[in-house]
């Protein structure tokens, strides 16, 4: 498709989207640093993107037909929307780049050596089922949904047009109000949005790209602390301002997804960790925090070393993610004094 036709198709798509009640002003899709993304047409003017609630597509209401994403039940959408959605997915999202890049990533992940699979599973980074899956279309669709979905009114939904925006941890997240989900503002270059709180390693394994995330969370770990065994459940704690949940079971202590690094607020990780353990007998929270950091570092270094002699695109990308994770979890110093 030549440039003129591309522009015409894009303008038609956007006009139709507006006709259904959506908003997309001053935006165009093109190739950028992060693959296909949305850019302002005139970067001196504000961008406005809005997907109203009635155009959000529930993730359990889509399926593959002849390798194209279609809406299963069209009854709740404006007339013609499901056809528009099929064209949108085929030409600008799933069919444009997403399917191919997810397929490549999943195949790469499946092809990793068994010892790397074991390490990733042990640390809670990749679930066993995902590695044992094939890179067939239905599984690729599941991954596509996992990287695009958002929770809205207790439902997982996809956001037409807005899902084309790429991620940056430095940007604001989507705005959500009674009218739907939106992105607005002036952008000198690519329009970017923060998908969610994450860290480099989890972002890479969930989304397939490397990013200098500003937070660092723990991996799955077992730490011997004085006479106690402390289990750390790894993963992302989306509530960045709350202490991690702690549960006690006999002599076993379980800490749920503690944040251990934050480049923007380096005093917060230790502060929240200590708050979470207040009143837990037999724990030196400061020392345990250090131990959790130590064990994370050693686990990541061990993974990097195992990747060092292997070859292949995914291995070098995974190694980069590990290195970025080391930096992300390194951002913790001091603590905040909490007023009584």
């Amino acid at each position: 498709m030549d440039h003129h036709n591309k522009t015409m198709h894009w303008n038609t798509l956007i006009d139709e989207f507006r006709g259904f009640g959506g908003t997309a002003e001053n935006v165009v899709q093109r190739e950028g640093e992060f693959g296909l993304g949305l850019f302002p047409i005139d970067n001196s003017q504000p961008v406005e993107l809005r997907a109203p609630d009635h155009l959000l597509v529930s993730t359990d209401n889509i399926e593959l037909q002849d390798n194209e994403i279609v809406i299963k039940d069209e009854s709740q959408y404006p007339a013609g929307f499901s056809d528009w959605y099929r064209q949108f997915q085929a030409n600008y999202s799933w069919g444009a780049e997403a399917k191919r890049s997810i397929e490549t990533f999943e195949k790469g992940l499946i092809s990793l050596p068994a010892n790397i699979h074991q390490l990733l599973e042990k640390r809670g980074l990749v679930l066993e089922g995902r590695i044992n899956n094939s890179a067939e279309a239905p599984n690729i669709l599941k991954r596509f949904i996992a990287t695009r979905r958002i929770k809205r009114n207790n439902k997982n939904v996809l956001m037409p047009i807005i899902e084309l925006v790429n991620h940056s941890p430095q940007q604001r997240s989507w705005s959500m109000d009674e009218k739907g989900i939106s992105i607005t503002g002036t952008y000198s270059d690519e329009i970017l949005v923060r998908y969610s709180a994450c860290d480099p390693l989890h972002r890479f394994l969930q989304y397939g790209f490397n990013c200098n995330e500003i937070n660092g969370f723990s991996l799955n770990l077992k730490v011997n602390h004085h006479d106690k065994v402390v289990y750390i459940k790894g993963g992302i704690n989306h509530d960045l301002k709350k202490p991690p949940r702690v549960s006690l079971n006999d002599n076993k202590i379980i800490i749920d997804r503690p944040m251990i690094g934050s480049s923007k607020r380096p005093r917060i990780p230790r502060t929240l960790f200590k708050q979470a353990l207040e009143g837990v007998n037999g724990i030196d929270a400061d020392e345990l925090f250090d131990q959790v950091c130590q064990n994370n570092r050693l686990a990541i270094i061990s993974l990097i070393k195992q990747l060092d002699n292997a070859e292949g695109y995914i291995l070098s990308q995974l190694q980069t993610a590990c290195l970025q994770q080391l930096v992300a979890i390194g951002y913790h110093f001091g603590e905040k004094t909490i007023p009584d």
Partner: protein
Amino acid sequence: MGSAAEWHAFLDEFRAFGGRAENVMQRKGAFGMGLFPIDPAKPVDLFVPDNLLVAVDNVHLVDGSLVIKDESDCPEGYGDWFRRYQSAYSWGAEGRDNTKAFEEGLKALPTTVQALMKRVGLYNAERRFPGADPEKEVLQRFIQTRCINRKQRRVIMPMIDLVNHSPAAKAYDMSGEGIAIGGIHDGEVLVKYSLSDPLWRMISYGFNAPEPLGFSLSFRLKHGDRMVVVQGGGSRQAMKPCGIELKEDRVVIQQPLLASSINPKMPRTLLIKACRNIEGIAASELFEQIHQRNTQALVQLLKELQTVEGDTAQHLRTGCLDQLAALSHHYGQRDDLLADDSSQSDAA
């Protein structure tokens, strides 16, 4: 390297000068050429008396051989023995070629890698291996890896300098009238050269070792409203508070210990102790800031090395990863030692 008969004849000569070398032979091992017990069930006895130690400024190269400049203080014939020793078993056997290959490898690293290493005080090619007189510069590097401080002199230890390093081994025994290594050795005879960490060991000696300590790189950082200058590198007195001084408005910290796998509570404790009398420093927070900056610098170096090929790049990568692992070993603090300190200052 000569035959077994030549080796034993050589040892006989060494003994005649007053040295001891019992139950040892040189051969190739996991760390290159090294010394091994002939009978592992029996003790090894290596001893170089003080009069056979050779000051580093009393050697030079003559026609490619390492020789003693002024033999007047040595036993008769020792100069000739030393020349043959260096030629057959040390400098000429592997020492020169390995040292040269390592220095050339470092110098051939991409400029981005070299610039990073220079910035954190790890390596400066212009100073270390300028290339104006390569043979002499290689010799200086060779000597750096073999010499030891003994009675205010830097000396080379013939025979003992053939022993390879292990951080888990005992140090040299310097309690008598010379330098000794003894005891039963299952496999290779190994000795702990000095206190160091994986990266400084690798840069100084050219080999990777899982050292139990972690020291800092060099950099400046902002701590509150203070500028802090951290001078990196290993310290001989690792388990004592590091030096710290105020220079104008800057705080200069000398070779802080950041990690110890054997005493993981000591590094933070020592920095807190060192900072006791400096105003405007939150020592615990500063300790973590120094860690954070080390991690950042090491990861940056690793990223630059990701696509660089060659043995030196691989050694450096391993050194950086081992360093990151070594630096992980710190948790908690020794409240008992800090309480002692504060009760002393209260009493004063």
